[in-house]
Structures are given as structure tokens and as C-alpha cells.
């Protein structure tokens, strides 16, 4: 974690916000199963259910960042197993496109990532959230939140 990120958090691990856009047919059910099985995973993730990751739109991801997300994960079915044939492949291309947009905007493209799993893969869901949580913590709060912090605390005092 960067020193700046620690400062933003007031010396403690910063509250990281990760939005997970989950397919109804796989990742959402996997997350549900992880809960039933009492599998632990980071609490930084907030789940948004989609009927299919094919519903994912670039604007959805940008909206998440604009409204305070530090990372976005997109979780769809295993490749070849999409309930709607190709929704997860469409999502994969949109995630790649969004990474390019984020780079132009000035946000690290690693903050958005695609994962694949089936509804039975509760462990993989937990692992995916853990990977995303660790990636985002390494990067620190998003540049937007860092800027908002600097604007609110120009002298560098902790909140």
C-alpha cells in the first residue's frame, strides 16, 4: 500500500470499495453458496446482480468508478458455458475496452478485471474476491478518491 493511501485512511488500512458485477446464473449463485458454506472472503466487495455479464456496459463500470469504487470485478460463467451463449465473451471484450479507457482517463487499468466461475465454485468466488482485494489494496484508493482527499485536506492532515 502506498504511503499516500495509508495517509488517506488515517494510518489504517483504507476502506476499499470493490463493485462486483455478477451473472445471475453463476457468480451470484457462487457467492450465495460461499455464504452458505461460511467461506470467508474480504468484505470490501459489493455485489451487483446482472441477468448475464452480457448485460455489462462500459458505462456501468465507469459509473462505479465515478461514484467511489476503487476496483470493479466482473464475474461471469465459465467460457463456453454462458446461459445466453456468448454473454461472457461480450463482457470480456468490454472489460478489455474499458481498461483502455481507464488508462486514458488516468486510472490504473488493473482496477477492473474479469473472472469466470460456475455456480458451484464458491471457493473460486472467494479466491477471486481475495485476488481483487489484494490488487486494489496494492494500488491504494482510486486516483479520484485520492484527489477528493487532497481537495478536502489540502494541508495533508488525516481525516
Amino acid at each position: 500500500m502506498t504511503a499516500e493511501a495509508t495517509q488517506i485512511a488515517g494510518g489504517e488500512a483504507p476502506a476499499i470499495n470493490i463493485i462486483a458485477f455478477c451473472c445471475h446464473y453463476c457468480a451470484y449463485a457462487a457467492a450465495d453458496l460461499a455464504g452458505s458454506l461460511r467461506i470467508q472472503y474480504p468484505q470490501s466487495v459489493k455485489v451487483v446482480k446482472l441477468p448475464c455479464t452480457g448485460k455489462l456496459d462500459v458505462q456501468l463500470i465507469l459509473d462505479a468508478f465515478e461514484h467511489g469504487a476503487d476496483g470493479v470485478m466482473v464475474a461471469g460463467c465459465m467460457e463456453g458455458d454462458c446461459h445466453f451463449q456468448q454473454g461472457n465473451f461480450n463482457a470480456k471484450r468490454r472489460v478489455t475496452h474499458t481498461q483502455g479507457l481507464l488508462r486514458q482517463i488516468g486510472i490504473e487499468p488493473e482496477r477492473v478485471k474479469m473472472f469466470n466461475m460456475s455456480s458451484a465454485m464458491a471457493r473460486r468466488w472467494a479466491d477471486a474476491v481475495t485476488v481483487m482485494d489484494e490488487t486494489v489494496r496494492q494500488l491504494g484508493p482510486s486516483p479520484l478518491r485520492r484527489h477528493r482527499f487532497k481537495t478536502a485536506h489540502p494541508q495533508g492532515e488525516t481525516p
Partner: protein
Amino acid sequence: MIVAEQKGLDEIKNSLGDAKRVLIVGCGTCVTVCFSGGAKEAAVLGSSLRMSTQIDGQGKDVSEATVQRQCEWEYLDTIRDRVEKADIVLSLGCGVGVQALAEHYPDAVVVPGLNTTFIGLPVEQGVWAERCAACGSCMLGSTGGICPIARCAKQLLNGPCGGSSHGKCEVSVETDCAWQLIYDKLKAQDRLHLLMEIAPPKDWRTGRDGGPRKIVREDLRLPKTSEAPSES
């Protein structure tokens, strides 16, 4: 349709200068269909600009509005208030849309967000190709519906050049030789005799070489005030 591509974010940001209130105006017709300047693209660009300028400290106030067609005055009237309140208008219309906005709102500073590229069609999802050069004198009837003006790099009128190889153009191996396409099409239709007629040199005055073009249809014009029937 008119096909366009969005400019890079850096170029767009540079064109905005120090303007604080930015209005992005999308167009609901051609550039919506080619995914470069419709309501969705305006929203994505707006979001990108808000975040990018917040990160670099400019913090611009960016909003979006999309009209059905930027190239008609009536549609532009619907956003008058928003244009007047903006410091700068970023048009996501084609070159016509940008100029229509600038002409309709003389006080507004209007900059383009797209590079208008060609008149074409989507040959498959996500791929657009040029099909018409708007030369003003259509000859598609004698070329099997394949335009040698738009699709031949040399705009040849009487068969291929020596650069045609295995049906491809020497300009790019990905580009079909227009005259190979024309020959194949006419042969399949048993109309090769059309190629025996030599096309005379083209009169380019109907194209851009004749200067800016204009069409006047007297049958469609509204009557002048002096000609309007008087109310009795």
C-alpha cells in the same frame, strides 16, 4: 450512413482548453448507429471527462444532451438553454452536425469530438467499410452495384490497374480490388457486355472539384411571404 470515429481523450481535453462548463451534444442518427456519437457514447465520454479532469485538477462541469439529428435546426432548438449556459460545446455529431451547431448558435464555441471518416455500412458487427464517395454522378448501374470511385484506390473507370493481384488491391492485401469484384459480379449475372462500353472521363464538377454543392428543390420550398395566399 456517415461513419465517424471518436477522437482520443487527450485531443478532446486539449480542445476544451480552460472552459469550465462543457456540454457534450450527441446525435441520434448516423453516429449512433456506428457507435461513435450517440447518447451512450456521449455518456461514456462525459463520465471519462469528468473523472479525467478531476484527477488532473481541472474539475470540469460536464453534462450531456443528445438530439435526434444534429444536422437539422428544429432538433437543435430543443437544447438552446443548455447550449447558452455552456462555456463550450463538444459535438459528437459528424462534420455536418458540428457546423450546424456552430451556425445555429453563433455565440457558442463548438469543437468536434469525432473524426468524420466516410459514407459506408457495417459489413459485420463492429466493422464498417466505405461504399460511397458522394461524387454526384452515380455509375453503379453499369458496374454491378459496386462503386469504383469509393472502392478503387485509383478511382479507375475502365478496369483494374496493374496492381490488382489475386483479387486484392496493391494498397493493402486486406482490400478487395473493386474491379475484380465488378468483373466477378457481372460475370455471375452474365452481364459482362457492360464492360465492353468504355466509360468516358468523369466530369468531376459534380463532386468536390466543383466546390461546395447545393441542391435546390423549388417544389419543396416554402412560399415566400409575398407569394403566400392572403387571408380573407
